[in-house]
């Protein structure tokens, strides 16, 4: 069977009885079996659970419009980044420390996605502990980009992007501490939302840097990502940072800012060009653009590489090999580097110079960004300075790898949402795109802009093969 590429196509197919939920699971698992060895996208598949769930929903007569209103993700096959706890299914965080860990409970987002009818197909490869921009830091080997297997799929949610490009799942989940949802979406021709800090519960998601971590969906259309976001958002009583926001669109006429600091010399010409074209398209649709200045955002990546390792060193402190997992000698190089960096910036004599300083510069960036959102509803920017790079290119140089996320850091430091949108392909046939950042809890405005843009360019979801 031809696997549908969107939630709507899937549910229409079920209503029209073109296929059953079990046949869908068959089709996805067949592809995973065929291609996973080559691309290293799934670490674990949950065949039995997928089939038992699909069988529950296999009566085609139940599929009515009304049914899908109550079960918005019915028939939707989902893969989770392997940093989301899944009760009874191995969860590794991409690390040998947790190579045989089976969680006794599921993350809130996992439970909500499944309560909405989704079928869990398995766990996706990622940089160990979500530390990385290429997927190459996974202790289980790098994931390859389905659009060209010599290239990285983007990290850290590497399998979550690649699974969509390889048509191994309809939607996936990711975490974004500094671009880890947006980058794989960008490098794999997918749509993703990095939600507002406090919009989606992180309960049951292995923590990386708690003041920056966010949980969000990746899919092939803005509509699909919005549907999943609406399923997972809101308070659960287990993550004290989450609030139930009204998510209102502030203005009927949306204005977008172009922050000139995000278009500096390091940017690849094809990345810049796709954004310039995107701006032209949205202008024709009546969106107003203006240049804005965010001078302190040039320090965002430095602030991030102080605050994040500090929080990592604290969060990874709990892995002692006593209650679960292996001992600390099982940490890979990147985790060790970040733990040491974090411990150093928090240690006596260096706390003020690094950590306290970074927290103050963070305030400065936030105040500039807040001020700009008095004038505009969104900011357009690259996700990364270049299209996907080759496997191995940055792996021996941690600092160069870190700078991949130079444009991603601002959204996390400010706790604002950002929508990553595919826009086209480079001359080499590699995915291109950009991000739209908004003020806190302005996800609906970003979704509107994303839909407007994709409608205007006649966007159609694509898979690599």
């Amino acid at each position, binding site marked *: 069977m031809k696997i549908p590429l969107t939630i709507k196509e899937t549910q229409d197919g079920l209503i029209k009885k073109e296929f059953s939920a079990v046949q869908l699971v068959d089709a996805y698992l067949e592809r995973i079996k065929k291609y996973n060895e080559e691309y290293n996208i799934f670490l674990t598949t949950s065949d039995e659970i997928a089939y038992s769930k699909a069988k529950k929903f296999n009566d085609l007569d139940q599929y009515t419009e009304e049914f899908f209103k109550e079960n918005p993700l019915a028939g939707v096959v989902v893969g989770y980044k392997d940093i989301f706890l899944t009760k009874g299914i191995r969860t590794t965080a991409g690390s040998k420390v947790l190579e045989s860990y089976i969680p006794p409970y599921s993350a809130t987002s996992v439970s909500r996605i499944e309560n909405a009818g989704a079928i869990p197909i398995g766990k996706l490869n990622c940089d160990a502990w979500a530390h990385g921009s290429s997927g190459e830091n996974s202790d289980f080997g790098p994931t390859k980009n389905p659009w060209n297997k010599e290239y990285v799929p983007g990290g850290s949610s590497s399998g979550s992007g690649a699974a969509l490009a390889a048509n191994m799942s309809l939607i996936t989940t990711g975490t974004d501490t500094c671009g880890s949802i947006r980058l794989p979406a960008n490098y794999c021709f997918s749509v993703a939302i990095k939600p507002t800090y406090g919009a989606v519960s992180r309960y049951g998601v292995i923590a990386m840097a708690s003041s920056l971590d966010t949980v969000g969906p990746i899919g092939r259309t803005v509509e699909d990502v919005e549907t999943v976001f609406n399923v997972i958002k809101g308070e659960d009583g287990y993550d*004290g940072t989450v609030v139930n926001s009204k998510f209102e669109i502030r203005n009927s006429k949306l204005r977008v800012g172009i922050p000139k600091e995000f278009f500096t010399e390091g940017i690849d010409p094809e990345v810049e060009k796709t954004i310039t074209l995107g701006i032209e398209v949205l202008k024709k649709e009546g969106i107003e653009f203006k240049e804005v200045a965010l001078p302190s955002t040039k320090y965002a990546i430095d602030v991030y590489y102080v605050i994040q390792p500090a929080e990592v060193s604290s969060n990874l402190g709990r892995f002692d090999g006593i209650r679960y997992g292996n001992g600390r000698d099982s940490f890979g190089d990147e985790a060790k580097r970040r733990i040491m960096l974090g411990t150093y910036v928090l240690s006596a004599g260096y706390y003020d110079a690094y950590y306290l300083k970074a927290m103050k*510069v963070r305030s400065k960036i936030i105040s500039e960004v807040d001020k700009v959102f008095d004038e505009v509803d969104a900011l357009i920017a690259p996700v990364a300075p270049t299209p996907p790079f080759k496997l191995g290119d940055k792996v021996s140089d941690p600092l160069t790898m870190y700078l991949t996320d130079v444009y991603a850091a601002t959204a996390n430091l400010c706790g604002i949402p950002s929508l990553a949108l595919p826009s086209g392909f480079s001359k080499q046939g590699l995915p291109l795109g950009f991000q739209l950042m908004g003020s806190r809890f302005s996800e609906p405005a970003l979704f509107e802009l994303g839909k407007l843009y994709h409608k205007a360019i006649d966007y159609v979801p694509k898979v690599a093969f």
Partner: protein
Amino acid sequence: MDMAKLSKADVTHVARLAKLDLTDTEINKFLPQLSQILEHVGELGKVDTTDLTPTSQTAGLTNVLREDEVKPSSIDQNGALSGTNKTHNGYFKVDAILTERSDK
């Protein structure tokens, strides 16, 4: 502000604080990498942050409290112990941290 150059002794000290057993090869590999990263983030020293209060989180919430109640959905003892084989009478088994005094 003192952004002293990272030494081998610093790396050893930090590894000890973080409970990481590093080999000499690892220390020699990490030292230049960590130095390079610290030099980059040291740029922050140039930013004027007078009168700025530090930001530790962006939720804007303080002291989110709830009743301390046991809920039926809570993980039971077996669930809590399910992550390890090293248990004893329903407890986690750990290495001894105290040794018998030798001067008695």
